[in-house]
């Protein structure tokens, strides 16, 4: 039951912390952003704070971690003490250090994958909407066919074929998720390409690349940014799940999903250590979701009637 008390305590601490953080942002930021910051809900402030902390830890991992990522520094499964704050793992590596390096590896790989999926998916989607005709039909039907297969199952199938390494992992997940991004980007862009200013730009003799870059993308950016946040959560959870299953990020690289898998036996003995990396994953996705929720609410401009 100690865990429950800890959770209650953590939530109780995070509320004033986000409150202070929101007030600080409203003071420090330039005028327009300060107004947005002042009016945002506490959940969103909490989300931004958590994301900032993660970015900080990932950037300065080598300075923050007390030991190296991969060296064995003790016996296996040492309990929490002053030299190893969170104990050691199955092979005797320092848990805290691996947790800190995991922020860099897990989040970094998930971010790279999402970015790749986005560049490919949104460019193809906008291009299809712009060109129309058989190209649009062909691409869209192809994407429909791929989307009829659940994404985790399809990723597992592709990983069987190409083998498991970080590079194939990134390419496979990016390819699977690009289909989802394509759908969104195409439907958003279809609303934009019928506008008069696109017609005007075409009559001026602008090329497709100019149209995508200067006319369509700026007008399709808001929904795409929100989608990026959601997509990042999905990709992050998928990669963590695959690593947990032993099919994602491979040892000896420190990664949160595989850290849970490696040390899971401790849970049955009542030790919470293996829950920490899983909690780190959960906390980041919750934070991103809170921010995306707020952005979507702002973008829709809707107020639910009471």
């Amino acid at each position, binding site marked *: 039951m100690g*865990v*429950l008390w800890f959770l209650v305590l953590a939530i109780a601490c995070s509320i004033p912390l986000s409150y202070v953080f929101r007030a600080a942002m409203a003071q420090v930021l330039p005028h327009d952003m300060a107004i947005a910051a002042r009016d945002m809900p506490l*959940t969103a402030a909490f989300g931004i704070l958590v994301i900032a902390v993660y970015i900080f830890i990932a950037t300065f991992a080598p300075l923050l971690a007390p030991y190296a990522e991969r060296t064995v520094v003790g016996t296996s499964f040492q309990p929490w003490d002053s030299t190893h704050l969170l104990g050691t793992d199955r092979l005797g590596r320092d848990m805290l250090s691996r947790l800190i390096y995991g922020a860099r590896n897990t989040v970094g790989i998930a971010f790279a994958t999402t970015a790749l999926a986005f560049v490919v998916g949104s460019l193809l989607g906008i291009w299809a909407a712009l060109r129309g005709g058989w190209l649009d039909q062909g691409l869209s039907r192809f994407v429909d*066919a*791929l989307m*009829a*297969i*659940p*994404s*985790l*199952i*399809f990723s*597992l*199938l*592709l*990983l*069987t*074929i*190409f*083998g498991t390494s970080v590079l194939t992992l990134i390419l496979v997940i990016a390819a699977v998720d690009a289909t989802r991004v394509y759908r969104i980007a195409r439907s958003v862009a279809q609303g934009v390409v019928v506008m008069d200013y696109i017609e005007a730009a075409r009559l001026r003799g602008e090329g497709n690349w100019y149209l995508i870059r200067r006319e369509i993308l700026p007008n399709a950016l808001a929904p795409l940014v929100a989608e990026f946040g959601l997509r990042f*959560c999905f990709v992050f*959870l998928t990669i*963590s*799940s695959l690593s*947990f*299953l*032993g*099919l994602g990020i491979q040892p000896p690289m420190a990664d949160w*999903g595989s850290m*849970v898998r490696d040390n*899971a036996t401790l*849970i*049955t003995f*009542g030790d*919470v250590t*293996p*829950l920490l990396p*899983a*909690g780190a*994953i*959960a906390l980041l*996705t*919750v934070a*991103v*979701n*809170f921010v995306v*929720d707020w952005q979507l609410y702002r973008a829709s401009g809707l107020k*639910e*009637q*009471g």
Partner: protein
Amino acid sequence: MNAVLVMIAQRLALGVLTLFVVSVVIFGATELLPGDLASALLGQAATPETLAALRTQLGLNDPAPVRYWNWATGVLQGDFGVSLATRRPIADMLSARLGNTIFLALYAAAIAVPLSLVLGVLAALWRNSLFDRVANAGALSAISFPEFFVAYILIFLLSQSGFFPSLVRLTPDMELSDKLYVTFLPALTLTLVVTAHMMRMTRAAIINLLASPYIEMARLKGLSPLRIVLRHALPNALAPIINVIAINLAYLITGVVVVEVVFVYPGLGQLMVDSVAKRDIAVVQAIALIFASAYVLLNLTADVLSTLTNPRLMRRK
């Protein structure tokens, strides 16, 4: 009535077409292999003779359409070929596990669907109350948790103190009550993961409708809020709710993969993960086909059901 049959027939035809395309994609994925299946299997040990022998044995010398035809007709007759790793017939490996996986998914669905409907209706009824806010924040967090995190928290809280077993051992001659008890934790994990989403969508669908004029009319008549939600809003919100339920049941299919591994549950998901690690493509293909078919069929059912609940769609000429 005739229009309904035509509609269902159209949807079924579309479903069969989708299944065909899905099977082509799953089969065609192996064509992406650098080299071919035989060289991937043999790896370093490949000599020209063994390669040629294995190619003949696997039938790799036939052109792709012929191999697809052989594979697809075999699958339709319940013959999935043999496992590349163990050389056992895949159908034998699948039969018991398929039942276990379906049992787990149905168990979770039986708890999750009523629970999320009730919670969603209550949240819509008491919208912007404390209950609504807590339920919403809780749901948003639950969606963001990886399945294995939820599973291990449950193990930590419920299994550590000895209430429920953390490893699932199924024996064929088990009583149903024992089976329900043993599989309670995996089912609860899946329930928590899908309930959040279904609850949020139910709430959103009902609240969307509450702005309509006929709800205003019902309110002005002096009906109670509960009656307005249950008798006037809910029937019209059924179509989106059915769709969300179908999406989540389909989600259960992929969710079982991780949950089965955590609880060492003898189902299809675990077999699939093992086979991916061994790169046993034949088994992975078979399981992927089963999961994908279930996914397609669920979406098809949802499509038909949500049309049936809407009289305006039914009478459209």
